[in-house]
């Protein structure tokens, strides 16, 4: 396992879920989202027993499946929302043609999380979104900001832990940091 990956995992396990009221995290990285994704998924699924929803906008769900398998992360109870990708699967929902369909995305994201909550009222659940920058290619800052705020509110109501992976210079960094209960600099 590469050292930087181990460092990331340590940073995540030292920083996330430190308090019972914590429900949202922003992980800030300039070195690409993939290593952070796998670190946080390993931590939540393997170490903490979480199940969750991965929003697949930059990479299809098959990428995450391979990445999880390669790193020994359990996919049991994980669901993937493919936005714009044509792949289908048992634990995959396919929606929209592009990441500009924010209304579709938020309805599906919250619906999936709610379904998981109704199925298992005491389960530990999360949602992972690493594609805010890509959303901004299709919609303006105000629209994406409102999307993030709406989703954050509803996931809190459902007691679902939200993780946003963002770049340091992210245009919506201020609101994402404000919405997050914990902000971790991953670099």
């Amino acid at each position, binding site marked *: 396992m590469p050292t930087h990956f181990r460092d990331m995992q340590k940073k995540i396990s030292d920083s996330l879920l430190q308090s019972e009221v914590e429900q949202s995290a922003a992980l800030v990285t300039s070195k690409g989202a993939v290593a952070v994704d796998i670190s946080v998924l390993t931590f939540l699924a393997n170490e903490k027993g979480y199940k969750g929803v991965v929003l697949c906008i930059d990479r299809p769900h098959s990428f995450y499946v391979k990445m999880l398998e390669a790193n020994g992360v359990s996919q049991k109870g994980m669901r993937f929302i493919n936005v714009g990708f044509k792949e289908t699967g048992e634990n995959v929902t396919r929606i929209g043609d592009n990441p500009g369909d924010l209304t579709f995305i938020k309805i599906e994201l*919250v619906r999936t999380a709610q379904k998981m909550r*109704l199925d298992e009222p005491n389960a530990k659940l999360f949602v992972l979104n690493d594609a805010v920058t890509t959303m901004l290619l299709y919609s303006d800052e105000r629209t994406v900001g409102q999307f993030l705020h709406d989703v954050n*509110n509803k996931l809190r109501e459902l007691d679902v832990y939200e993780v946003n992976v963002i770049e340091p210079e992210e245009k919506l960094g201020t609101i994402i940091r404000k919405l997050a209960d914990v902000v971790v600099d991953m670099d």
Partner: protein
Amino acid sequence: MAFIQELKKKDVILVNVQTNLFKKRFIAAASELAAEFGKVCVASLEVPTMEIAAALGKAGNGKKSICLIGLAAPGKKACPPGGTCAESDGTIMDLSMVLYRFIDTTQPKAVLFGPIYVLGQRNDKMEALKFINYLADDARKSGRKLVLFCNCTTETARQDCLRDVNLFVDKVLEEK
């Protein structure tokens, strides 16, 4: 009403009625859908759910097979006692959560929703249209019937509504 016959051939229908007839037609539609499909979900954005529940009770439709969604209003209860009912504030995010909580747990065979102009009053118009688009797509994917009701007060609003929502439905019925 003619829409029940149409629903045998189509999944998603928009029924446009005159404003003064809306309440009567909407309640009658709820009752007919319950009689035809058994399990139904009624999202009423204008007609009080108490009145719908009373009418369904009178028509002999069991409370267990109907789920109702009403709009929250200050100082007023949106739900009748007993049965399955929930309140929403009418925003897309809240309405979709309440609606899909029912749909995903009770698997109704049909959904009655209206009047749709209220969505545009409480939300951005484009977002309201996308929500209707999602409802229609999801109904088709799930083999569930969707009946949307519209009661626009002016001819211009009616034309706007029909032009926009027409894109997502299988059939538009005009009830005079």
